Every structure is written in structure tokens, then in C-alpha cells.
């Protein structure tokens, strides 16, 4: 039983990772406000928003940013529940757990006294709130960017931002082969599970896992040779060439103007 639990967990994990990414790609192709923007403009403004979140020092500013993100989610026709589940599930929950001790141990003025010297301090409560909101805001922005931008557009935007072509090509190819290797790994787990009656000890599972990993390693090394030969046969000469046909439209300029105004206002409200 123990062994089976471990195997199903791994299968579930791998499959889930695949599905979440594929679902994101579908959404980026659907019509919506953010989907229709130039990826370069979108990426630059989102990064500025994330920096703004980093610089914010008031809880109100961070809350306003989160509200703004939710409006953008709605305008981009991303299902709200799906978005919240994806954003809130792990990282902010973890931040809450991390922040709880800070409520008590941050030195400062007592907000709620519990017993004797123990109590929640004003500074502690604020620090905890800042951490959780900041983490949630930054993550939401990142997730929203990815949900509304197709992978190819993202790569093109990266290239436009002067990332070396070699690096961009590597990122693109890595992404592609992650799926292949994950499928392979998934198949290995499934094959193993289909032949498993009863359970295995932890030690046996670990050894099996090591064999699966080593096989994957050897396969990836072998595959890199084959991919290289395939590239050569198609005329690859060590240069990475790519088409990029971006053109700014009126809505991109409107969006950029809106984003910059919002950022200035947010930073200004921050200093109030």
C-alpha cells in the first residue's frame, strides 16, 4: 500500500504539472483585454507593477493593487475561481504560516495582549500583513502574465529585451523537452504501477526511483545528440534565427499610459 501511494503521488504530480501548463496555453489564446496586448508592452508593464509591489509600504496600496489585478482578470476573461485557486493555493498560504510567529516576536507596541509579555504587536501585525499581501500581489501578477501570453510570444518578447538568442533558444527547447521527458517519466511510473501487486519498502522505491532517474538522464543525453543531428540536417549552423513581427497598436499605447499612470499614483499614495 505504502509503495502504491508513493507511485500514485508521483504520477498525479507529473500529470498535474502537465495539465496546468496546457490549460494556461489555451487561455492565452482566448480573446480578452490582456491577451490582445503586445507581449513586449505587457511584459514591461507587468515587471514595473511587480517592482511597484516590491516598493509599496502601505497595506492599503497593496490591497488596491490586488483589487486592480482582479479587475484585469475579469476583463481578460480568465475564470476568477481558477485564478484564485492557482494563486492562493500554495505560496500565500505558506507566507501566512511563515508570518504567524512574526505577529508575536516583532518588537513594538502591543496591539492585543494575550498573557503576560506575550501578545501581538502592532509592528508584527503590519509586517505579517505586508508579507502576505506582497507575496500574493507579486505572484498574481506573474500568473496573470503567463495566463494571458502564449509561450511563443513570451519567447519573442524575451528576445526583444536583448536576452542572448542562445539563451532564448535554450529556454524554448528546454520547455519543449520537459514535456517529452515528463511523459516518459509518467509512462515509467504507470508501467511500474501496472506490474505492482502489494507494496514495496521505502528502500526498494528509492532504488527504483534512482534507476528511473538515471534512465531519464541517459535518455536525455542520447536525445540531445539526436536533436543536434536533426538540427544539423535542417541546416543549423550555430545561429538562432527567429521571426519577430511585433507592431504597436493603439490599445498598447493606451494600456502603457494607463499602467504608468497607475504605477505613479500607487507610488504616490504609498508615500502619503
Amino acid at each position, binding site marked *: 500500500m505504502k509503495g502504491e501511494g*508513493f507511485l500514485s503521488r508521483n504520477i498525479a504530480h507529473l500529470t498535474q*504539472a502537465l495539465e*496546468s501548463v496546457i490549460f494556461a496555453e489555451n487561455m492565452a489564446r482566448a480573446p480578452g483585454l490582456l491577451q490582445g496586448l503586445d507581449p513586449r508592452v505587457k511584459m514591461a508593464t507587468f515587471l514595473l507593477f*511587480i*517592482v511597484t*509591489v*516590491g516598493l509599496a509600504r502601505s497595506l492599503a496600496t497593496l490591497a488596491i493593487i490586488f483589487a486592480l489585478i482582479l479587475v484585469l482578470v475579469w476583463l481578460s476573461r480568465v475564470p476568477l475561481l481558477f485564478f484564485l485557486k492557482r494563486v492562493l493555493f*500554495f*505560496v500565500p498560504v505558506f*507566507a501566512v504560516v511563515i508570518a504567524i*510567529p*512574526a505577529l508575536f516576536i*516583532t*518588537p*513594538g507596541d502591543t496591539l492585543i495582549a494575550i498573557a503576560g509579555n506575550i501578545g501581538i504587536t*502592532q*509592528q*508584527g501585525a503590519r*509586517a505579517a500583513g*505586508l*508579507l502576505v499581501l*506582497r*507575496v500574493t500581489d*507579486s*505572484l498574481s501578477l*506573474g*500568473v496573470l502574465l*503567463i495566463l494571458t501570453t502564449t509561450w511563443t510570444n513570451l519567447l519573442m518578447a524575451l528576445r526583444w529585451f536583448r536576452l542572448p538568442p*542562445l*539563451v532564448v*533558444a*535554450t*529556454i*524554448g*527547447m*528546454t520547455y*519543449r*523537452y*520537459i514535456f*517529452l*521527458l515528463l511523459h516518459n*517519466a509518467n509512462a515509467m511510473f504507470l508501467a511500474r504501477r501496472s506490474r505492482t501487486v502489494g507494496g514495496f519498502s*521505502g528502500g526498494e*522505491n*528509492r532504488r527504483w*526511483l*534512482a*534507476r528511473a*532517474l*538515471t534512465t*531519464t*538522464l*541517459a535518455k*536525455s*543525453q542520447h536525445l*540531445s545528440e539526436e*536533436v*543536434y543531428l536533426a*538540427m544539423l540536417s535542417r541546416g543549423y*549552423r550555430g545561429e538562432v534565427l527567429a521571426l519577430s513581427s511585433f507592431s504597436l497598436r493603439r490599445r498598447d499605447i493606451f494600456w502603457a499610459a494607463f499602467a504608468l499612470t497607475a504605477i505613479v499614483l500607487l507610488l504616490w499614495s504609498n508615500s502619503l
Partner: protein
Amino acid sequence: MHIPDGYISPATAGIMYAASAPFWYLAVNRVRHALTHRTVPVLALFAAFAFVLQMFNLPLPGGTTGHAVGGTLLAIVAGPWAAVLGISVVLGIQALFFGDGGLLAFGANCFNMAIVLPLTGYFVYRVIAGGTEATSPRRLLAAIAGSYIGINAAAFFTGIELGIQPLLFHTADGTPLYAPYGLGIALPAMMVGHLLIAGIVEALVTGLVFAYLQRTNSSLIEADVTRRKGGKLRLLWGALGLAVLASPLGLLASGTAWGEWGIEELQSLGLGFIPQGLAGLEGWWPAPLPDYGFPRMGAVIGYILSACVGIALVVFILWMLGRKLSHKDLSQKGPSSREGARA
């Protein structure tokens, strides 16, 4: 160990990008030199492997599971510089698609997991492995020790980056703006978790895979053995690299104290007079965010930045030196075909 956005300040994040940049530059050049046209497919496949490796949950005695980073393993099989780039690519994809680690914090995450981890791990591996055969038990021990020390070194840097946050970034009333725990809590918290659990997972995965490679596919390790020529030079390189990595420690470990006093603090330290030059200098660097409640934060950032520029400069000079030396090396021996298959 993935730091999400919000735990470190944008200033720290920027500095960590600056600290990672020279290593990325060096790695791209190294890898390109060794792999030439093969660079893209080889790096991509190894990165994809590292990604998949990080998704495998290893059952641990006691019922829990954990996953490895695989930095040291990748450094052994693909070469340290390919590992730097491979893990960086993995971290980038994780940050973008899975929200694992922040986009601003990407530089910091790369510094810890894609630079400190594989370089330290590989250095330890090489030192312990010495000139032994690919299949020797000593080499297995070297891989295990390297991966354990590598991941703990990474955790150490992560702990420091988180731990300096409340010290450097807080409001006037003492509210920490980012990660709220000082070095006294953040560092032990990181280290205990990694010394006792994550380090063991990393060592276990590396050890098991390495042992299996030794039995079935030792050619992947052998490439490393044949490359050992000029090992002394590489050792020196590693030592210098470690020294460079450790150098920001001096200014971080003591927090804001040593050498960063303002005029009043100098007086309170019992310094009877204020050096003329210092009195004139105070305030020349206007703190960009004076409300942070740390009036000399600008100076602190300047200090750390100049340390980074120093590191970058040292790395650059060493790199030029290394290139010269290795060119001489090559012209004496001629390039080996093995070399071409690895970074």
C-alpha cells in the same frame, strides 16, 4: 529554497541579479567554447532533465517525501558551467509557469541554487574524487559529499539574504517591510531544514543515481575523469571562485555594523574626532527611499553594489587569465575530442 517575490526587497533583488550576471556571462562563454554548435540542444536536454528530476518525490524514511535540486549531479555529468546555465533555465521556467520563486527574486534564486550550489558541490566533488577511476567508491563518496555540501551552501546564502531584510528594510516604527526574521532566526531555520532533510534528499538522489551510473553508464562520468588534466589549475579556480562567493559574507554577516557607521555612530563608538573627509562625504549619496527608516540605506546599497562590482572585476580578470592559460594548455596538448562533448 525558491524565494518568492515579497520576501526580499527590490534593492536586494537587483543586487542579486548583478551578482549572478558575471557568472552567467562566464558560463555562456565557457559552454559555448566547449560545446560550440551543440550548446542549445545539450543545455536544453540537461535542463529538461533537471526539471523532471525536481518533480520526482523521493520517499524518505519516516513517511515524508522530498525532492532534490540536482545541481551537483548535473555539474558532474554536464560540467559545472553547463549546470549553472541549466539550473538557471529550470528556475526561470519554474518562476514563470509554476510560480515557484519570484520574478524579481529570480536573480537571488539563481545565485543560490544555480551558481553557489553546483559550483560548490562540484568543487567538493573534484577535491574528494582526486584522480580516482570513474567507478571507484571514493568517487561515489565525493558525489554524495559534494551534493550535501553544495545544497547546504545554497541554503546558507538563502538564509543570509532573507535574514538581512529586517535589518536593512523597515519603517520608522520598526515594522519589517519584507521577510520579518533577522539572521538569528532565518539562518538557523534554513540550515536546520537543509542539514537534516533537504541535504539528505539531495545526497541520497545524487548518490543513488551516481552509483547506478557507475554500474551501467560510466561513460557519463568517465568524460569527467579524462578531463582531469590541468586539475591543479581547476582546483585553484574553484578555490578562488569559493572565495569570491564568500566575500559578500564579510559585509553581510556583521549586518550594518562594521564599517558602515554614520557620523553619530562614530561618535558614539568613542571616536573622538570625525575624519574631515568623512564629514564632507556624508550625505553625498542621497538615500533613494529615505522613508525606509534607515537613513543610510543608500550608503549600504552603494557599499554592497561596489562589492559586487569588485567581485565582477575580479571574476573578469581571472577569466581573462584563465583563458590565456587554457589557450596555452590547448596549444600544447591539442584539443581532445572528449572535451567537445562536455561543457
